């Protein structure tokens, strides 16, 4: 099982998920968050927190988002850990609305 952040987080980065992560496994760059699969314990606490439903786990990962499994694993370890909620990226609310949330 793997839990991952996918496409919808891009340019939103709401970081609500981070507040409930029991193991601080979220990392961030200028665009979005990524989950470090070696730290994540697949507890799925973060999944319902995401306002744009960008986080998926295991069998629930949509087929067209599967490339994100590798991207999360590759990017997360070298990026800083996001331990506390940050301001969403500028334009996040507009993007959220455009995504239909």
């Amino acid at each position, binding site marked *: 099982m793997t839990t991952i952040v996918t496409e919808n987080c891009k340019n939103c980065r709401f970081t609500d998920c981070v507040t*409930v992560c*029991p*193991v601080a496994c979220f990392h961030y760059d200028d665009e979005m968050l990524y989950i470090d699969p070696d730290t994540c314990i*697949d*507890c799925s606490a973060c999944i319902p927190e995401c306002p744009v*439903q960008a986080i998926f786990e295991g069998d629930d990962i949509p087929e067209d988002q599967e490339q994100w499994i590798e991207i999360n694993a590759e990017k997360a370890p070298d990026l800083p850990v996001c331990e506390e909620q940050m301001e969403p990226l500028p334009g996040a609310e507009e993007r959220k609305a455009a995504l239909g949330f």
Partner: protein
Amino acid sequence: MSTLGTEENPLLVAIVGSGPSGFYAAEALIKSEVNVKVDTLERLPSPYGLVRSGVAPDHQKLKQVIALYQKTADSPDFNLIANVNVGTDITIEELCQSHHAVIITSGAETDRKLGVPGEDLNGSYTATEFVGWYNGHPDYRDREFDLSHEVAVIIGQGNVAADVSRILAKTVDELKHTDIAQHALDTLAESKIKEIHVIGRRGPAQAKFTPKELREFGELSDCNSIVREEDMLLNSESEAELQEKSNIASKKIYEQFCEFSKREVDPAKSRNCYFNFLMGPKELIGETKLEKIILEKNQLSGEAFKQSARGTGETIELETGILFRSIGYRGVPIAGVPFHESWGTIPNENGRITDNDGNIIPKLYAAGWIKRGPSGIIGTNRACSVETVQCLLEDLEKLADKTNKAGAEEIYSILNKKNIRYVNFDDWKKVDAKEIEVGDPKGKPREKFTYVDEMLSVIDS
């Protein structure tokens, strides 16, 4: 006296309870800008609360969260004082004397009652007892569960009900390489249970399992998961609930139930787990022990997302010899701390403990289930403890005391006078290492010591 929270005058905080909320509160304090010393008190010799004794043994990955708590515990600003019962061995008043602030993170230790006749019959148990028993919690070590009946009933539609049902549904082979307590594995090996009935008050669109937990029922090696197709028919309000985009978890759960309802029952499997909806217990019947349960059929009323279950008067009977109730938890009051009787929590404002009229009581804080009630999963408590610690740090000036605080030394002196044996984190590490060592030849991540005396003798060896 210098400012509180400096190197010369560190903020001394006592935390009551070493479960996730206690550790997240300790972590937030230690990571703050303030110079702090945390003393965490724990009733058992073993830390980690429900991560050790609540999280199911077949969910080992979740227990990896302990690695993070260990990191907090290894901080020089953290100290564990375990095997100490706050309220009897040491009072809240004494902790308020020895420390600048006290955070209660004692969790929700008991179950809500069904409130139906026969509830206390032999054979009717709480999920807490059973979960504590299979997880090797010393309080429940010597409980006996009679698994010689063919039909078991679980009342509830949440993850604890799912855990209890799944443990009953699994084979010994599916459990033997987990950290399930040996006495439980031995009893489960002799189980005669063939039918497991999970009873939910509301419908499949309102069940509170997490999708992941429910999915595991589709992967059991020797148990069918059965849902009646007619139970999948929804009223228009429930349909509307599932249409709501934010309600994606309920939609996934509903789809999983639909998938179960379409499955062929595999006759080669020796157990069946039935998910029953829109039913509630009306009465438990038996001469000296549970023999059958009367269930009343429910219907939903009210608008979408506010639907409640009401009895229709129509009843059905189910013969059963063993029942577990899992309809929610309640906190247990601690002497010297206000308690909200009907909610089963400590009254508080964002973690600042208040009396029952809402007046803030200085120095006392709460976090976790005892603060907000038994909702959410492990990580939810992190946000909760962080909020409490933020309030505490905002109150720093008010917490400064004119008298000197002795912190842990004062606690030790009180405990020593009463001849109470306390355990520190290094002591616990000995028990931890020994458990792993004993579990290894059996292919188990650890074999838990289930008696307090056993743990203490490992420490003394």
